[in-house]
């Protein structure tokens, strides 16, 4: 199982990536259901910047273009985006 991760704005800049595929084969064998919190934990292992960026208090998570809480379940092929609060308009 794999999903697409997208990063925007200050997060994209801080982490130097805007979009990548995340392979979840190992994790999905171990647990029946994977949620957004699990993905955050997994990505936080990539280093201190990742841990800090993904655990800032105002972080927004959008799963398939809908803002969700960290308990939202993630499925094969999903698009999960992380970004700071919106400032358009």
């Amino acid at each position, binding site marked *: 199982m794999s999903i697409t991760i997208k990063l925007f*704005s200050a997060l994209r800049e801080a982490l130097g990536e805007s979009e990548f595929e995340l392979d979840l084969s190992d994790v999905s064998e171990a647990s029946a259901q994977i949620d957004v919190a699990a993905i955050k934990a997994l990505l936080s292992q990539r280093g201190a910047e990742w841990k800090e960026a993904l655990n800032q208090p105002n972080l927004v998570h959008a799963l398939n273009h809908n803002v969700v809480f960290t308990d939202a379940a993630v499925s094969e092929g999903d698009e999960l985006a992380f970004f700071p609060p919106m400032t*358009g*308009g």
Partner: protein
Amino acid sequence: MSVSLQSEAIDVAAEYAQLVGDSPGAAVATFTGYVRNHSDAHAVTELELEHYPEMARKVLENLGQSAAERFGLSNWRIVHRFGRLAVSETIVWVGAVADHRGEAISACDLMMDTLKTDAPFWKREQGPAGGQWVANRDSDTERRARWQSGDVQ
């Protein structure tokens, strides 16, 4: 009843003419946002707008439809730019057509408040000291909350 995400400047007169058409409703309200030459504390020479295209389109279409249902709009339009914007350029334009003025004006108000907090756009201001991401405002979150609390009809 449509959304445009575009890098080109917004042609306000053309948007208005298309929104209203040949047989206008009774009441048309519009709002246009422009790039300011200053932020809270410093000068701004250029604005860069990053966006999440697929999600932005979906969010704006949903909020136009919600406003249309809530206020009985006969037409609405939301135009939002992305990319590099010079000072005094247009950023956003919303328009609403209704049978009565209160509905048209409230619909513009709602669309702008919701757009500010819910649509995935991020402003980066370019100034004398370099670029800086704009922080979101508590006042925007508060204005957004009015529409749920029943403070506004």
